[in-house]
């Protein structure tokens, strides 16, 4: 019961702020809505028992990436609005239609498959020992997925260098 209330509330928040992100005129507003969206998603993670991921979501997404966006929005000093010029060949209506169609189809697929019922979602951590979610995830990342983990770190390093090179003022 409480689960359901929490889920629906969070789902409504997430979708509402997502729509707000893509409809806001001012990019700064978009960024703010995005932060709220991310926080709501973090709460979903907590509900699903992924406490560590929720922390990451808050720290990295809401704390890091969004600040990056904010910096860029501030750095870019537009003389005319990005939406001012529109190419006549763009098919905005078709795009929206297609996206809605995809959503409808996904819903239909879920409706079909929903006939064979799945057990209710129980937070994973509740079934686990005292180490909790973070320890389990740590074990996984540093044993089974050690090499992907290191690759990801390399990816981040390369991305950092690439970002520096790209954003650098060219002499």
């Amino acid at each position, binding site marked *: 019961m409480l689960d*359901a*209330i929490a*889920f*629906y509330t969070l789902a409504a928040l997430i*979708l509402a702020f*997502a729509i707000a992100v*893509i409809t806001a005129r001012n990019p700064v507003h*978009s960024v703010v809505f995005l932060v709220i969206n*991310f926080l709501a998603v973090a709460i*979903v993670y907590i509900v*699903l028992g992924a406490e560590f*991921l929720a922390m*990451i*979501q808050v720290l990295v*997404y809401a704390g890091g*990436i969004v600040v*990056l*966006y904010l910096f*860029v929005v501030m750095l*870019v000093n537009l003389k005319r609005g*990005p*939406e*001012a*010029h529109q*190419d006549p060949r*763009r098919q*905005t209506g078709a*795009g*929206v239609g*297609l*996206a*809605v169609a*995809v*959503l409808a189809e*996904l*819903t239909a697929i*879920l409706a079909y*498959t*929903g006939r064979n019922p*799945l*057990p*209710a*979602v129980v937070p*994973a951590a509740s079934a686990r020992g005292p180490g909790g979610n973070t320890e*389990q*995830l740590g074990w*996984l*990342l540093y044993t089974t997925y050690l090499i992907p*983990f290191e690759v*990801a770190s390399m*990816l*981040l390093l390369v*991305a*950092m260098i*690439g*970002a*520096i090179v*790209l*954003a650098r003022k*060219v002499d």
Partner: protein
Amino acid sequence: MHFTPITPYHYLLLSAALFSVGVIGVMVRRNIIILFMSIELMFNAVNINLVAFAALYRHEVGQAFAVFVIAVAAAEAAVGLGIILAFYRNKETLNIDEMNLMKG
């Protein structure tokens, strides 16, 4: 008031809806920063999916993948925003419609 129990289907539906919103954002907006934000939305949709299944199977593998997705998203954001800055320096605009160098 009676609610059906929350199954992974609910989370999948939420994820699909969030993803569709991201797609629509990418399709409709012309400000490239907003485009990137829409892409972040899609990443989040995927992550919800992964975490939901992790809860279903009571195993943290899905969460581990979500961690990787977040790492890739961070890298994407850093490089993508760097590209935006470089582009802006050259063209003085953020309009995706003016980025048509691949026009045939």
